[in-house]
């Protein structure tokens, strides 16, 4: 369902002054973001920095307190329903129906996104192969190992071929081998033209992103390619710090929650 023709915007996500308060707590404080089509956009920050809240507002699941959100050229605050079929979302909890089988999970999401029989058959085949689950279609989701569940969740989140895929800490709690394999899948998706918006804790994963934004205490404190961010923190004449060091330096500078 990739939009074709000149109407496809070069900007996938455009956020201005986005703010979200829950009672007295302000989780997101007036952030600006710009994600271009085709990017792998890494959204980094410590726990509680406001990453998940931001993603939920971008997907239209949560109404912002103030600010504007434009996703794929649509005003999400006003018309959250219009982007549903064009975006995908995978949460850190993988959000599978654990008491349904692999096949039943796929069938449910395929039905919800309104895939016709032929498209569904093709997507099901692709996802099963991609996730390595071809021999386990009848297995209950709860009986799958974490790596499998993660790949199945990626499959269900992208069963409708979204143009833009949000992934909220998709690799948390997954072993390094499975993580590597997962990122290979993400790279494949990106090469297929899908824009990716990924949050993560792991700096070695951030390297895979084409652009990064650092978030701390509800604010975006740095924004740029991994190279740019490292260079911006280099001592004059000294070597550029690693991404990990840059992250720690930035976080410390702006204080922890």
């Amino acid at each position: 369902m990739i939009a074709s023709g000149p109407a496809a915007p070069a900007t996938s996500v455009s956020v201005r002054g986005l703010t979200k308060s829950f009672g007295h707590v302000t989780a997101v404080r007036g952030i600006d973001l710009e994600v271009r089509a085709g990017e792998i956009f890494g959204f980094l920050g410590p726990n509680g920095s406001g990453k998940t809240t931001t993603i939920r507002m971008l997907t239209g699941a949560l109404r912002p307190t103030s600010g504007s959100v434009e996703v794929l050229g649509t005003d999400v605050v006003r018309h959250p329903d219009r982007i549903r079929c064009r975006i995908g979302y995978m949460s850190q909890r993988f959000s599978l129906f654990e008491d349904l089988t692999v096949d039943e999970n796929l069938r449910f999401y395929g039905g919800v996104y309104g895939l016709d029989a032929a498209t569904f058959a093709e997507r099901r085949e692709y996802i099963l192969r991609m996730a390595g689950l071809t021999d386990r279609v009848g297995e209950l989701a709860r009986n799958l190992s974490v790596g499998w569940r993660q790949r199945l969740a990626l499959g269900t989140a992208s069963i409708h071929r979204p143009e833009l895929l949000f992934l909220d800490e998709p690799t948390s709690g997954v072993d390094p081998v499975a993580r590597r394999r997962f990122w290979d899948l993400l790279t494949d998706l990106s090469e297929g033209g899908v824009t990716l918006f990924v949050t993560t804790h792991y700096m070695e994963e951030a390297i895979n992103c084409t652009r990064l934004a650092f978030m701390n205490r509800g604010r975006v404190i740095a924004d740029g390619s991994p190279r740019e961010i490292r260079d911006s923190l280099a001592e004059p004449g000294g070597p550029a710090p690693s991404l990990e060091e840059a992250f720690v330096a930035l976080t410390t500078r702006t204080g922890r929650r």
Partner: protein
Amino acid sequence: MNPRRIRFLIRKEFLQLRRDPTLIRIALMMPIVQLILMGYVVAADVTSLPTAVVDLDRTTVSRRLAADLGSSGYFDITRRPGAESDLRALFDGNVVKVAVVIPEGTTAALTRGEQPSIGVIVDGTDNVSASVGPGYALQAIARFNSDRAAAMGLDLSAAPGLDARIRVQFNPTLSTVNTMIPALIAALMLISMGVIMSQAVVKERESGTLEQLFVTPIRPAEYVVGKVTPYVVLASAQAAVVALLGMVWFRVPFNGSVLVVAAGLALFMLVSVGTGLLVSLVSRTRAQAQQTVLFVMLPSMILSGFIFPVASMPVPFQVVSRFIPLTHILVVLRGAFVKDSGFGDLAMSFAWLAGFAVLIFGAAVAATHRRIAE
């Protein structure tokens, strides 16, 4: 609303239900266990039964008798209809549980040294008052007789006095089960919709799938319909089990109108669904949901007349019981099953039920809609 998406939601819910055979077994076993418990074990102390006195004699003696009944503490004389034919409406409308009829000429017969009969009619649909009402009446009348004999300085054998004729209206075999089965249908509906459905919604929130569903094209209204439908089917199956078991095994007679029962249950279904949704809204975890349900259920069971008759509760609790939906559906179901009460007789109960249905279901759907959209 997109019917195709709703269909997928319903199918998913049924698949999940099927994966939990324990739940289905409990849902269908519950009626049987409850029947045995309620049908055979219940007994309670009863006072202040609402009573009608039809005094056709209109003498000082008959007024004394009525006063004696009232002061015994067991009967609360709330109505004094002029004719015996007025009683039917009072019983049907659940206004009184007991009626005492003092025929014309009672005093004259007493004076002649005869033993005139006093009619005591009890409402058999309320098993507790029906089982103790006659006994209390006999006691009160025996005391009246001995007081009267003593006043005349005579022995009871010389002045035998009044003779009480007990008649049980509507449920002459006084079978507890006859009134418990209709009550169980409603109670189980409240339990299955309140407990099982709220658990299902909370489970979805715990696992994160709820969050996932609302980035898909599913609308909140579609979600609610998809979620509620399977449990409406389950609750209907339970009601059928109870009714079938009651009629085949316990030989409960059904004297009423199917339409009245269906209308009452439809309204109560909305109340139960609403309760379940509200519970799921205030609960973050399944354990919390369970606690909340218990908190709601316990007063419902105790104060609704499910076990203890409302009429014998202290007045403040009688007021509270009016604000419990179960109270009103019990009146409707028991009335329809045993007494063939119609919409006219049960108008008050239907009005309450309709009010609760609009209020609770409306609030629940609106709140769910908002909460899910957040």
